């Protein structure tokens, strides 16, 4: 591992332009600097491998396949921000990943083993949210807390805490080893760097694929062995991301800034191709039902709003809506945004809004009890 000083490490990361891979895409160097400036040597590093996103596999795959790289990244982060303690927060269902990290840690010198520990994150979508992760380590309660203070101000044990996704840490380790110019030399178009995608749905080889950022959606499909049937829509960025029309976005560069400019999100790198014979209303209803079930049930607009949105999508999906359900979906999605302690309702509303655009005809059809995907329901012959 390179022995750059704290300030040189942070400068390398800033020059690399590395953006966080947990979903929010925050610049990694800036985050490290914020913690370093507050810590005065007493910080904590929390390597976030909770990966509660149902369509994402990249964090658990990375921890299982390259545990030492993740550990290197966490050690570098600890040196850069002035942390003694390192916590690997790993989803309790990611058994292979946890075992690999445990083995890799056992191979490290005693001083590293003494500073690092693995904490099993409880299952659930919000358990990986950064304030929830800190709350769980502090108090055994994986629900988000009211911010401020944010973890970088007051986190584990009240100390400034760097909560960083494990892929971001692994990339930081590679940048520290090879220099920012190496990372800047990768990528297509204006995008710089590399990233992991989890590609699923109507592809021949679903799984985790490393791509240069700025690769197109078409490249992502090719990396996964090509599409294995007709596809009309694609879910980008996971359940907090959004639906996009595949034909419009086939040449879309997969890169956080380019996608944000188009109102889309790279998020945690999920790319899910929806087969054309699957109804978009039905698929959206499943996602919204899941997200409503994953509310931490602390904030009214999230508890009641997401549950109401899920209920309306279920009625629409079943082609038995109440009058005005579609209009209510539009209103409710607008109402819940920005009104939780964490961003759970915002993410759910963003997904719902994208569905109402991409599947506009389907939703309108379902409000009139008609599915466009399965245009002619099978009829039972009446003798």
């Amino acid at each position, binding site marked *: 591992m390179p022995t750059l000083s704290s300030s040189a490490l942070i400068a390398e990361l800033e020059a690399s332009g590395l953006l966080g891979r947990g979903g929010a895409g925050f610049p990694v160097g800036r985050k490290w600097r914020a913690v370093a400036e507050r810590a005065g040597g007493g910080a904590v590093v929390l390597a976030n491998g909770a990966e509660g996103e149902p369509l994402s596999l990249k964090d658990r795959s990375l921890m299982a396949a390259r545990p030492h790289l993740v550990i290197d990244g966490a050690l570098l982060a600890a040196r850069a921000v002035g942390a003694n303690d390192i916590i690997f927060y790993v989803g309790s269902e990611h058994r292979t990943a946890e075992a690999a990290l445990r083995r890799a840690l056992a191979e490290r010198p005693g001083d590293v083993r003494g500073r690092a520990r693995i904490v099993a994150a409880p299952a659930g979508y919000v358990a990986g949210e950064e304030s929830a992760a800190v709350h769980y380590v502090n108090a055994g309660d994986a629900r988000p807390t009211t911010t401020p203070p944010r973890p970088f101000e007051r986190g584990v044990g009240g100390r400034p805490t760097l909560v960083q996704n494990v892929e971001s840490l692994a990339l930081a380790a590679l940048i520290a080893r090879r220099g920012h110019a190496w990372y800047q030399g990768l990528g297509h178009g204006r995008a710089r760097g590399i990233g992991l995608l989890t590609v699923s749905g109507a592809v021949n080889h679903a799984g985790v694929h490393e791509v240069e950022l700025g690769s197109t959606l078409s490249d992502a499909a090719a990396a996964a062995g090509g599409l294995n049937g007709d596809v009309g829509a694609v879910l980008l960025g996971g359940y907090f991301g959004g639906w996009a029309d595949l034909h419009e976005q086939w040449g879309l560069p997969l890169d956080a800034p380019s996608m944000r400019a188009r109102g889309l999100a790279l998020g945690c790198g999920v790319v899910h191709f929806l087969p054309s014979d699957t109804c978009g209303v039905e698929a959206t209803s499943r996602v919204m039902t899941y997200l409503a079930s994953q509310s931490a049930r602390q904030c*009214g607009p999230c508890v009641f709003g997401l549950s109401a949105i899920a209920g309306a999508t279920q009625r629409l999906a079943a082609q038995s809506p109440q009058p005005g359900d579609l209009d209510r979906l539009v209103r409710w999605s607008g109402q819940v945004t920005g009104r939780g302690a964490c961003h759970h309702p915002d993410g759910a509303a963003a997904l719902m809004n994208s569905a109402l655009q991409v599947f506009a005809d389907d939703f309108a059809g379902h409000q009139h009890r008609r599915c466009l995907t399965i245009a002619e329901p099978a009829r039972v012959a009446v003798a």
Partner: protein
Amino acid sequence: MAEILQIDRIRCNGHGLCAELLPELISLDDWGYPIIKPGNVPPSVVEHARRAVDACPVLALRLARTAALVAL
């Protein structure tokens, strides 16, 4: 100094007193939880805002100086 209204969403139980006392800035959603009009509290309603803050039974509403938000 300009002030804004902040809600602790975890504490808020949707009693709705704030919306009755400060309809200029607070409305309720379909489930009775407050929706705050974005931006600074205009000087003309600061007294009403203070009354709404004091009336919240769970102390979920507060007035914060906007300067305090710069650090976020």
